[in-house]
């Protein structure tokens, strides 16, 4: 049976409106195998608080709860600095896109797991073929955020859908990795995996490809990072077995 993961649910420690217990309950109800609680990275102390809270939440559930960090920066130098600081401490590293230079730097950095909403606040889609090829080469997943759609209306939503459609075409051409996430700040913004996949299907993805974005791809990212953090994965194709 397929395992479904939502790799971006915002924690109550960084602007989220629901408690961890509520998030876990909603995750179980929607049929997820696991979720990733994401911290808007400010400092290491904030990340420590989240880790302690997640450890407590893990005790009472079968849901696989991962810890992630979302990085929002204004310059490429800052991005590199923060990635260096955080990479060894979280299971999923997400870069919030928008600025072209940051989008491209994220695509070119293999330590980044997901580039989220590269089209945010832009007229264009925020990516070109160079970026998409770099992302494919470095196994950086293109993140489609459902929250951006949910909280936009009419013209703005149409623009976002158009940009996502363009990025979807780039993704298909380069055969890169894609991930669909809710980016929910509260349980009311969380959606079941099948609905996340349906939105992508409506934008032109094959249903099987859309379903991979909520099941196989997130599982692969999480497993890869857990092996790296445990010291079992040296580099691409080199792992310590047993």
């Amino acid at each position, binding site marked *: 049976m397929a395992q479904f993961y939502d790799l971006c649910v915002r924690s109550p420690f960084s602007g989220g409106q629901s408690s961890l217990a509520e998030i876990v309950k909603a995750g179980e109800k*929607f049929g997820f195998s696991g979720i990733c609680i994401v911290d808007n990275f400010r400092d290491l102390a904030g990340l420590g608080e989240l880790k302690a809270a997640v450890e407590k939440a893990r005790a009472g559930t079968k849901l696989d709860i991962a810890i992630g960090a979302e990085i929002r920066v204004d310059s490429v130098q800052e991005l590199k600095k923060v990635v260096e600081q955080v990479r060894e401490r979280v299971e999923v590293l997400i870069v919030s896109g928008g600025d072209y230079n940051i989008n491209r730097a994220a695509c070119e950095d293999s330590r980044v797991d997901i580039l989220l909403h590269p089209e945010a606040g832009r007229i264009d889609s925020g990516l070109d073929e160079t970026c998409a090829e770099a992302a494919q080469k470095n196994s950086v997943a293109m993140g489609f955020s*459902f929250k951006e*759609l*949910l909280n936009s*209306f*009419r013209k703005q*939503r149409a623009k976002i859908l158009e940009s996502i459609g363009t990025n979807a075409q780039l993704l298909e051409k380069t055969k890169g990795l894609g991930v669909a996430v809710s980016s929910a700040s*509260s349980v*009311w*913004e*969380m*959606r*079941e995996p*099948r*609905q*996340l996949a*349906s*939105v992508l*299907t*409506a934008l032109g993805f094959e*249903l099987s490809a859309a379903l991979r974005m909520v099941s196989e791809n997130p599982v692969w990212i999480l497993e890869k990072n857990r092996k790296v953090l445990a010291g079992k994965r040296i580099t691409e194709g080199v792992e310590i077995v047993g």
Partner: protein
Amino acid sequence: MADFPEKTEPRPNRLSPTLRDKKRYLAFYVERGGDVQFMDLLNAIWQGILGFLGELGTAKAGIWILKTTWDEQRRMGLIKCNNTSVEEVRAALSVVNRVGDVPVTVTVVGVSGTIKGAKKKFFGERDLMSFAGTAPVQTAEIEEEEGGEEEEGELF
């Protein structure tokens, strides 16, 4: 002699089955954060669908919300659409997140080809046929208790 009602307006004949769109019924479940009137919910769902698919897309998808199937206790209802538009309707329902000030989520529980099937599968409704399979077993148990082994063979 009783008065017969006046002859109703003539209707066109139904399209032949090959020309008719194939229908699907989506059973949806509503999770809500407060009290919501059904008519408000209905409007919110229509707004969500029209907003996401547009007027043309909604027309092509052949969407209709079946008011009479709404179950207040289970908070479930049925939406009719074409068999080719199921994914689009599912996506459109996912963008419904508010009825007035009350947060809501609309989840698709499943898809069926008939209203009867959808009600059986997702609303837990049962008819007499649902009990048909269990009857012989019950008889067998009773007869076994009363008459012993001899009568067991007569059942088959």
